[in-house]
């Protein structure tokens, strides 16, 4: 343990700090769990005795990622994922903070359960874990939870996870009440009635596969409603997972009107499209569903412009029993903690987005929205750091994944770039050898 807390000097690295919009070659010194310096030529001479010196020539150093949306099975479904296994996957993916969702059993809807998750994470996880608490009791969309007490217990935001609050009065009151605590409300915008029995994006492709579609309107009707409620209540609102150009238009209008509205997109929706479903591959069955290539392009463009604030993994472990089923009957969801960064690098290599922009959406912006430390390499910031080897090509073998479930859409995918080292609070928790 003592050895682990040695100071670390990362030398000759490309240092990318989205919080200061910096991208330069230099060294980064870590001691006592915080970043001491990040500049050119600290060198071995200028560091405390016993410092571990790591040559990062050809590698990139960035703030550790903060994954704003991960579904973890603890409490209640530890066979799918525990906080421990999720944290191992996170560390391997360069994620130093997991924001877990309240869709557990029991749901994270009271201060005692928040406390349980935090203690359990402290005892078993190797990265930081912060829970979002339920917005409504039992995630049933009717009565708001104890937002004040939950926030005091450590909940970083309020959401019904993968469920939508269809009652506009409930949403209005929650937004209004949460404002007094400066609490962020995160909402999955998919109208369950418009989803109906739909299982993939509505359109020609669904029609050819003979599958029932989910219209984009299922997303936009709730998003538009929410934005109007934000205007009425002046609350703080984050759209959990947007998937289409129409939602981007709503988001743009809300931001231009000065409303406190932000949004996330999942890594899947900016790197994949509905055609990837191919012959009914259930690992590509997601909620909300993958859309067409036009929408994917619009999402990447909005991300590049900073209109979309956050890229999250939407990590959702599902075991074989619920995935090896006919498409319509299979569970939705894909794991992503371990692959979020490397999948995102595809967009960097193809020139669709700059590295600093991608990293900002995966670290700096989530930290700002949730009021968390991290997301920065500024001296004094918590030493949550990822070292990335941007150029190594490799093929993803699902058996090598740390997650308990292997439902990855990047199964056998060719990838370029991987995580070389992950440092949490100044300690190396993952190293690729």
């Amino acid at each position, binding site marked *: 343990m003592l050895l682990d807390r040695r100071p670390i000097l990362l030398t000759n690295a490309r240092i990318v700090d989205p919080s200061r919009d910096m991208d330069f070659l230099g060294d980064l010194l870590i001691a006592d769990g915080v970043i001491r310096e990040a500049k050119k030529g600290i060198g071995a001479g200028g560091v405390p005795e016993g410092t571990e010196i790591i040559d990062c020539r050809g590698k990139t150093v960035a703030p550790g990622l903060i994954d704003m949306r991960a579904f973890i099975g603890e409490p209640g479904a530890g066979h799918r994922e525990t906080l421990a296994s999720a944290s191992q996957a996170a560390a391997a993916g360069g994620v130093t903070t997991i924001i877990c969702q309240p869709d557990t059993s029991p749901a994270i809807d009271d201060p005692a359960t928040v406390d349980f998750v935090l203690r359990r994470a402290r005892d078993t996880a190797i990265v930081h874990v912060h829970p979002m608490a339920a917005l409504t009791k039992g995630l049933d969309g009717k*009565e*708001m939870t104890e*937002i*004040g007490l939950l926030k005091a217990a450590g909940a970083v935001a309020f959401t019904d996870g993968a469920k939508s609050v269809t009652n506009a009065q409930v949403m209005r*009151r929650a937004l209004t009440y949460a404002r007094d605590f400066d609490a962020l409300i995160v909402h999955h915008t998919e109208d369950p009635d418009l989803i109906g029995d739909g299982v993939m994006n509505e359109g020609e492709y669904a029609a050819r596969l003979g599958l029932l579609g989910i219209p984009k309107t299922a997303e936009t009707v709730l998003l538009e409603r929410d934005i109007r409620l934000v205007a009425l209540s002046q609350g703080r609102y984050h759209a959990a997972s947007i998937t289409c150009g129409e939602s981007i238009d709503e988001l743009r209008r809300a931001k231009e009107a000065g409303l406190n509205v932000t949004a996330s997109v999942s890594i899947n929706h900016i790197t994949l499209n509905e055609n990837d479903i191919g012959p009914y591959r259930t690992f590509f069955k997601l909620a909300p569903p993958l859309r067409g290539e036009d929408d994917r392009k619009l999402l990447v463009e909005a991300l590049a412009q900073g209109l979309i604030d956050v890229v999250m993994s939407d990590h959702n472990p599902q075991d074989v029993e619920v995935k090896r089923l006919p498409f319509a009957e299979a569970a939705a969801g894909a794991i992503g903690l371990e692959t979020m960064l490397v999948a995102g690098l595809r967009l960097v290599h193809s020139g669709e987005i700059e590295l600093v922009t991608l990293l900002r959406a995966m670290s700096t912006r989530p930290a700002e929205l949730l009021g968390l430390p991290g997301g920065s390499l500024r001296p004094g910031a918590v030493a949550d750091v990822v070292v990335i080897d941007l150029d190594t090509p490799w093929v993803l073998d699902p058996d090598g994944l740390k997650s308990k479930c292997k439902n990855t859409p990047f199964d056998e995918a060719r990838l370029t770039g991987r995580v070389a080292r992950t440092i949490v609070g100044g300690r190396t928790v993952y190293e690729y050898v």
Partner: protein
Amino acid sequence: MNIAQKSSFVLNKKHLLGIDGLSRAEIYGLLDLAEEFVELNRQIEKKRTSLRGRTQINMFFEVSTRTQASFELAGKRLGADVMNMSTSSSSMRKGETLIDTAITLNAMHPDILVVRHQSSGAVELLASKLDCSVINAGDGAHEHPTQALLDALTIRRNKGTLEGLLVVICGDILHSRVARSNIMLLNTVGARVRVIAPSTLLPPGIEHFGVEVAHDMREGLAGADIVMMLRLQRERMHGSYIPSLSEYFHFWGLDEKKLSYAKPDALVMHPGPMNRGVEIDSIVADGAQSVIREQVEMGVAVRMAVLEALSRNLPNA
């Protein structure tokens, strides 16, 4: 009569429907008159004869203990014949409309009708159909003028004045007629008013009422001379305005710690009935700074003053 009557104040109005429309002079006239009745009520001989021959009907469409009892006592001490009608025994239960009830009552030639109703504006509607004087004993979330007057009397007797005091009203402002009447009265006499509540329990537009708005008790109670707690009106809460009573008490319930944010000599008030452990802790409700019981005493005196001042303006008076 043991105490010679000093105040000859006459309220030049037919009805008392609200604080809205009362001048500063009228408010002080009523308070001064009430002071005399406070003295009278502390004597063994509490009777006056100024309302002898008059008929006062108390009509409470909504349950009440203190307000109804206090109007009844007030009327009786002034010599009126007082009749109580409650909805549980009236024809309203059989489906009679408010206006038909008014017409029926009118035929009995009452002089004064004291009305409480669960709907805002219902008392005004009745008043427009009746020949007698009407006193509003609380209508919906609109007005409760005698409560505001008795609160003002309690404050003035303890602090010597109303002017320049910081009165902080906390809790369920949205559903509160007490808050609305108090805000108007206190503004009229030159007190500063601040309200504290979760945003869901504040009526949108409250910032135009001449009040400061706070959501946090620590911030909101700073410098308070008077801490007026309101009852959380659970019976009016259709849907969830707050997540739970325990969260409400944690953030907005008045306990010793939160009271310490106010001035050390701040008074604690509550219109009653109290939900102990919801909006107010028993230690504070029964503590040295509490004037909650005194408010009830002032209630009878203020209602006598209102009855007296209105009756002086009745025909044949």
